[in-house]
């Protein structure tokens, strides 16, 4: 199952910090993502494209999870070594495109 089949999301940032939000379609999808997307799992999942610890925040009332990567964008937007500025606006697809086994 693709994460993006049961959730949508958005990328944000502040300085060195990458901040990803996922919102599930319903409570069951939220529970599924909550179970599978542990901080350790997500940290491994995005490595080596992102080299950072992950802090996860839960907002069950809104079926939402947040994943905050404190050292993913060293030096911030203008120090990026990617082509152009603001590559991180697409970083949510690290999560949305991830395939996992819902069992």
């Amino acid at each position: 199952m693709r994460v993006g089949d049961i959730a949508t999301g958005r990328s944000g940032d502040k300085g060195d910090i990458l901040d990803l939000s996922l919102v599930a379609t319903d409570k069951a999808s939220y529970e599924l993502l909550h179970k599978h997307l542990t901080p350790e799992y997500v940290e491994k999942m995005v490595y080596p494209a992102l080299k950072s610890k992950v802090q996860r925040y839960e907002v069950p009332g809104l079926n939402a999870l947040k994943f905050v990567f404190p050292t993913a964008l060293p030096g911030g937007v203008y120090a990026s070594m990617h082509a152009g500025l603001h590559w991180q606006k697409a970083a949510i697809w690290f999560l949305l495109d991830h395939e996992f086994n819902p069992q």
Partner: protein
Amino acid sequence: MSTSSLACRVGSGAGFAGDRIDPAVRLVQSGEIDTIALECLAERTLVPAIKARTDNPHAGFDPRLERRLTPLLPAAHKKNCRIVSNLGAANPVAAGEAITKLSYKLGIKGQRVAALQGDDVMALQSQVKWIRPITGKLIGAHAYLGCKKISQALEEGAHVVVTGRVADSALFAAPARAHLSNLEDALAGALTVGHLLECGGQLTGGNYEPIAGATKPPPLSAHDYAQLGYPLAKVYADGTADISVLKDAPGIVDAITCTLQLLYEVHDPARYITPDLIVDFSNIKFESIGRNTIRMTGAKSKGLPPTLKVAGFVEHPGFLVDIEIGFAGEGALARALNAADVLRYRLNNWAPDTISIDVVGLNSVLGAKSKPHRGDPVELRVHISAQCETAMDAQSVEDEIYSLTLSGPAGGCSVRSEKRNRLEVLDGYIQASSVPSQLIWSQS
């Protein structure tokens, strides 16, 4: 609808310095709002403004001020709608004078403009606690001010309030502030509305891909995006609010778009820190009460933050270069991959963490986690970014790309090269009581 009395009707006219100008004009002309707030100042937008002010004491505000306000001021004057914006950037007082001059030129008489001064804490830098030691040259330091003085200006009759660095949410919460109940949770609600509105079209269907499911809205067309309505809110005295978009404007306002914007860039949703309050979003609820209308309830205060945040701008020597060369036609993929390898041979003396070589169209955005491509892309661009100590180093990297046109795989084309200074934004903290702020008035 809330049973609580209406505190204000506020619209979102811009979410960044370069945002569209027409959505704000449409909101004001609708008569549906009493105040339009425009967020026009990203962290780094302050840097060119600081430099402009150094060269000319009457400059240093948003260079788009005249273009943005020329259509907005007459519409706001006609509809008795107030304007709040941070387009004062590094020089809000000069911005206030410029707005008064512009209004005079536009034939608007008796308009009162208040400029909020005090966010520039460069002179107070000894009192700032930085999160890391400063290793380069500090060129500016600005504290994030709250909504109290902006609210005061509006209550004292300002038609326009112009600021420098304030919390984005403060711009939108200010018109409600004086009309809220005394509960801290009411202000928490107004600040939450501010956070929802501060990114303009990102609340109303922009930067949003709906997902499958029973509640999936119809997708926005190119024409819808081109004419996207920006959000507005009715904020009630208890801090609850109805969030919507003009009835005749394209957009999506539903529980998902509101949730995405609520959580955007806040890190810990139980501790959204603003200069006015720490807000807890844990119990926020979004309930549909009509087409494209969401009722927001449940914001809670977690008390005053101990300090104000400060953004410091630190210049470092050297440059970051960002260069690309294109390949097209049959075999473009093989030639682009080959060219990237040529560059890896030619630049193998660079430390790995100071240079990045990849291919736009394959892996320049998501890097090692890009999906495998399906079929051969027919046009690609080979990209290098490099951290260069000197302008000569930057030139040598650019020259290596250009040399591919004569000595690399066939058809290297469409070279684009950018070079930017190395600038760090450093966070710091300062006691709020150390940062005096005042309103400077002018009138057309």
